[in-house]
């Protein structure tokens, strides 16, 4: 049985880890960009960012003072046994958010959208978001936190089947160029693209593709994997680097997630996970042990629900 206090303390730990330690996969990705970046200004920005990751880890300070909108993705195994029910998990994660905000410290970003009032702890109405998923045949709970900036770098567009891959490329370029100017989206980024579903799931898939897959991971569909690499190259060929300076470092990676959609449409969303790509995951087992990692491993085969489970 997993105690509520254990979920709270795991939530607290990942809040800290996400805020302070850059994930290894992103660091390796940006070092790859550094090798090919020939522009002085863009190269200087990348070098400074790498210095910043080191200082964050050394001093145990947040790598970026903008906490973004800290949130959680929870995957519960069918065999997991935990105290307090599902609302107990939500209560634990709300408490962990408030405690980590005070202790790290993290900037309390969350305010009421109209009255701009706040509790100075990143907790409020519908905040932090907690998204749920489930996993067969396992006895653990995965809790992932993501701290992603919230103002720039995301867009949604309803395309049509006739627009095809060209339409996706066009929209991808539009978004990267518009938000890349002056570096509003804090590139080089992990770009997540949602294709299909309904409008809201399209946004959700793209966001999860950006934030919950590690650099180098490829979609299991070979053709989609190929498109991921093609869009990454296209992004890096814009001629823009960090801060919108001349350069070649726009995309550290590109991830695509798809969902079955309306026969007449092809909704697409684009999301950018920034230079401070902050994520951390805790796996809590029924026996009370906890393992920490930086790869959320969110898109399991079950998660993508690739098969129809009855005879055709």
């Amino acid at each position, binding site marked *: 049985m997993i105690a509520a206090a254990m979920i709270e303390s795991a939530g607290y730990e990942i809040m800290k880890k996400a805020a302070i330690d850059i994930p290894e996969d992103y660091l390796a990705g940006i070092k790859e960009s550094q090798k090919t970046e*020939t522009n*002085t200004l863009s*190269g*200087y*920005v*990348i070098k*400074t*960012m790498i*210095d*910043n*990751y080191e*200082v*964050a880890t050394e*001093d145990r*300070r*947040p*790598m*970026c*003072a*903008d*906490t973004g909108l800290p949130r959680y993705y929870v995957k519960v195994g069918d065999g997991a046994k935990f105290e307090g029910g599902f609302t107990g998990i939500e209560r634990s994660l709300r408490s962990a958010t408030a405690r980590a905000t*005070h202790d*790290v*410290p*993290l*900037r*309390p*970003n969350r*305010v009421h959208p109209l009255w701009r009032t*706040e509790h*100075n702890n990143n907790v409020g109405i519908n905040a932090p978001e907690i998204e749920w998923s489930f996993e067969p045949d396992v006895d653990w709970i995965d809790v992932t936190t993501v701290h992603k900036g919230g103002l*720039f770098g995301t867009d949604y*567009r*309803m*395309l*049509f089947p*006739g*627009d*095809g891959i060209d*339409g996706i490329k*066009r929209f991808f*370029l*539009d978004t990267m*160029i*518009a938000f890349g*100017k*002056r*570096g509003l989206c*804090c590139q080089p980024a992990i770009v997540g693209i949602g294709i299909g579903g309904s409008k809201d799931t399209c946004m959700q898939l793209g966001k999860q593709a950006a934030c919950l897959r590690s650099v180098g991971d490829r979609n299991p569909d070979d053709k989609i994997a190929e498109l991921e690499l093609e869009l990454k190259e296209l992004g890096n*060929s*814009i*001629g*823009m680097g960090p*801060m*919108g*300076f*001349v350069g070649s470092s726009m995309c550290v990676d590109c991830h695509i997630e798809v969902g079955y959609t309306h026969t007449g449409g092809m909704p697409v969303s684009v999301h950018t996970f*920034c*230079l*401070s790509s902050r994520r951390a995951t805790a796996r809590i087992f029924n026996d009370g042990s906890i393992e920490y990692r930086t790869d959320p491993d969110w898109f399991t085969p079950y998660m993508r629900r690739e098969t129809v489970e009855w005879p055709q």
Partner: protein
Amino acid sequence: MAAMKEVELTLPASAEAIAALEPGMVVFLSGLVYTAREGVYDRVLKDGHAVDPELLAASNVNFHCSPAAAPDGDGDYRVGGVTATASFRFSRYMAEWLDLTGTKIVIGKGGMTQKDYREVFAPRGAVYLTTVGYGTGALLGRGVKGVRKVLWLEELGLAQAMWFFEVERFGPFIVDSDLQGNSLFSQQGDIVNRNIEKLYEGLKPPALQRYGETDDRKDELL
């Protein structure tokens, strides 16, 4: 790769030191820096609250920033990370604010328009510095040595309050605008723009144009 020119300024920055800044230079600051964004601007410019003139005389640097900070329980504050927020949103306050406070250096994310530099900043002897990459919260946090004063913490909250930081070798920042109103972001953007048409060559036009939006990709979002 060529090296970047680097300068260190002691605050309050002198008119000569500011005049010597060129777009693309790297700057580190030592002295007193204050934070102010929409909450502070509204409180002072709209609601008429005053800032202690002695504090403003000691600091002529406005950082568009909200720190990750928390009270330490003994009346002081722990400052973790410090990161800029996008400055273009504060453009409409700048003329009045620079006049009222005598601020000569504005630091933030992403700069302002060249028009702002030519019409508002340069005539007032002020320049704009940008933070680097935008996420250097830990490096900048290390440069903050203490909090001299914080105004309106209760009224505005941690993120919007006016913080006066004692800083030492605080940076790096990159000079965006100079006293002639030149802008590094504009110069770089112009070069990037030259390549844009080519990227779309061969892609077929969309089935549905975006209603009410520009299709000129040289346009900025500002």
